[in-house]
């Protein structure tokens, strides 16, 4: 019952925070913290050491005690401990006040701080594409309205360039975001070399993630264009609903959309986090990834679960190696092409939704990728 209440509380707060772009930063940060927990949980499971439950294993050490439960929205994850520090008489007043604030608002601060870092990094690699889309759309229709046949190519070429940049960004983004969430270091987001290595460690899970984004994108596209039918039904002829009923739908619809976006956004990011954790662990285990390239915080987690030991590389003759290499390369190319197509289709969903229900701001925020907020 307690867990159910906690779930309802955390879910409800998340949904409400998805209603505005500023509060959606908190949701991104909260999701980042949930990603960290999911990745660590995946390592715990992969370690095979199930003698201790995940909660017990995390609670055993001060450093990981905060991962026992899902992240809080406002109060600190170590609320009681921090609050008791605030009331410890031996400490100076200024420090006690700081503890008090940390206890009451610790998670809020963490959510905002991590959320802002993650949003900034995400914007750096995706906003150029989004801006090109916006400009391409504007230029294309402006030209079409004015019948500027002479420069008719500008709009489509600008928008397609945006699509190409977006595809490149999205091939990197999910794992990079997961890594930033786990490590808490914004620079780790830009470790393109590791990102490339992780992609080479098995592309199928990455393709699976693209498929999930496409399916989720379909639902979000549906939510984006639904007001076209709903709003006009409300304003239909003859009027089908009372004014009160119509107002209820108008007020309730954004909340329903926020619920959908929050659920899908968190689910997709948790899948990405688990995907990242498994690749790291399996890459080290089969000797294709060195633990040396990881950050200390990652190594600490992996050490703790005994996941830094590599298997001895199997010596195979040159023919077997050649065949294996050729097969893997071909497979990699095929999966890469599929991913490019998938992310291209994902961006097409936005164009389709914008075609039916346009909003300039919607070009600048994909609610499953950047901030979990639908303009």
């Amino acid at each position, binding site marked *: 019952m307690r867990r159910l209440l906690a779930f309802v509380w955390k879910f409800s707060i998340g949904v409400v925070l998805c209603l505005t772009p500023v509060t959606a930063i908190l949701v991104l940060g909260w999701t980042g913290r949930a990603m960290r927990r999911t990745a660590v949980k995946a390592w715990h499971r992969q370690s095979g050491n199930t003698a201790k439950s995940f909660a017990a294993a995390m609670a055993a050490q001060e450093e990981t005690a905060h991962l026992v439960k899902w992240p809080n929205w406002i109060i600190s994850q170590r609320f009681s401990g921090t609050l008791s520090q605030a009331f410890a008489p031996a400490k100076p007043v200024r420090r006690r006040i700081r503890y008090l604030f940390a206890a009451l608002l610790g998670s809020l601060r963490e959510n905002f701080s991590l959320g802002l870092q993650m949003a900034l990094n995400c914007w750096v690699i995706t906003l150029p594409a989004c801006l090109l889309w916006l400009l391409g759309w504007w230029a294309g229709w*402006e030209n079409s309205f004015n019948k500027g046949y002479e420069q008719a190519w500008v709009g489509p070429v600008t928008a397609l360039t945006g699509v190409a940049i977006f595809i490149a960004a999205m091939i990197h983004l999910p794992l990079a975001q997961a890594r930033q969430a786990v490590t808490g270091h914004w620079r780790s987001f830009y470790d393109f070399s590791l990102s490339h290595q992780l992609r080479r460690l098995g592309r199928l899970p990455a393709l699976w993630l693209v498929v999930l984004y496409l399916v989720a994108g379909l639902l979000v596209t549906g939510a984006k264009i639904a007001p076209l039918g709903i*709003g006009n*039904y409300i*304003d239909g002829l*003859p009027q089908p609903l009372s004014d009160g009923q119509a107002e209820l739908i*108008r007020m309730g619809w954004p909340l329903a959309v926020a619920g959908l976006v929050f659920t899908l956004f968190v689910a997709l990011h948790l899948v990405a986090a688990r995907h990242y954790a498994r690749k790291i662990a399996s890459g080290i285990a089969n000797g294709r990834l060195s633990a040396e390239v990881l950050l200390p915080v990652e190594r600490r987690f992996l050490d703790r679960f005994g996941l830094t030991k590599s298997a001895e590389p199997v010596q195979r003759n040159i023919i077997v190696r050649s065949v294996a290499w050729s097969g893997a390369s071909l497979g990699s190319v095929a999966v890469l092409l599929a991913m490019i197509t998938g992310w291209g289709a994902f961006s097409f969903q936005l164009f389709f939704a914008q075609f039916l*229900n346009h909003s300039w701001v919607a070009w600048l925020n994909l609610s499953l990728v950047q901030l979990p907020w639908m303009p």
Partner: protein
Amino acid sequence: MLLVDFCHGFQAEGQIMASMINRRELNKGVLTLGLSAGLGVLGSRTACSKAAYSGPNVIIVRFGGGVRRRETIEPETTYSPYLAHVLAKRGTLFNNMMISSQEGVVTSHSQGTLYILTGRYDRYEDVEGRILSDRFEPKSPTLFEYLRKSHAIPDHQALIVNGEDRISEDYLNFSENHNYGIEYRSSVMSLHWYKIWLLREQLKGDLDAAAREELSKQLAEREARNYRGELAGDQGPAMEGFWQRWRRHYGDSGFVNPRGDRLLTELSIRAIRELRPRLMMINYQDPDYVHWGNLSHYTRGISIIDNGLQQLVATVENDPEYRGNTVFVIVPDCGRDDNTMMDIACQHHFNSRSAHQIWALMFGPGIARNTVVDKRVDQVSIAATIGQLMGVRTRHAEGPPLAEAFA
């Protein structure tokens, strides 16, 4: 006048008889003995010489692409100041005109154009049932057919002026009603038709094989847009002369002439000067660009039409034969949504109340001045009203004439 009425009487009987005849058989001339009496009546129709038209000229302006009352006729919020502040005072404004909400009625451009032209809310579907395609065939006679059947008016003086975005609307110029049809069609003036004429002209010239192939391909593509049959692809010598003069002025490139709805104004003004139309419909459409998210395209489109109205009225007033003898009928094809759940509230395909709410403004000789009628009237009444103005019986039109408009 008596002669005209006499002929009308025979035509009415002829229509009844002809409706009993399979159209294909009639076209092939396969006649049976049992129908000989009816054909006798039909024959007598052709024997009647048509009366010369002496009524007022009528210019129908489709304030098209779908517009709301708020941005057009409401003085506080209008983007069409000439219409709302000047023209409204010169005529009768029906500010509560509606498009019916009966089943099968669609608030869109081609459908609205046909409701205006035929005076009926017929149900329309694409000729081949294609989804999202609007290649329609008017089911009932259009105003042009009524006029040309009863009066000696050549097709180039019964004129539709179209834009280039909706080529299918170029083929709405005659109905499939077997008593009317292609024989009484209107001419259509648009860049699509100019390009067809131009390509045919260019192909008459001395061209290398590659250029000939390219031009032939372009022509074939354009001709393939004709879904009404071979005859619908012809334009008479008057229209060809018009295009020759257009070509001399604007050349072949298409980059010199006005574009968008300004082009329609230019075509219409030239048509008034050169072809002297008695009934002309100008199908403006650019406010419809708001579909794709730029609200200024809607308001700019309205302003451009407003400016076009100013030029058209000036052209008419500067022409001795048109001044004092021309009635303007301005009416939108449909309204637009007022959807508070969307950033751009202005679609029109979803049967919203606002998409059904339109208006009409009429001014000219015989029309009451400075009159606002706020009782509910219907878009299909436009045809009957114009019919009454021109002295033409629009026997298939549903709506009663807008009696309040007549002075």
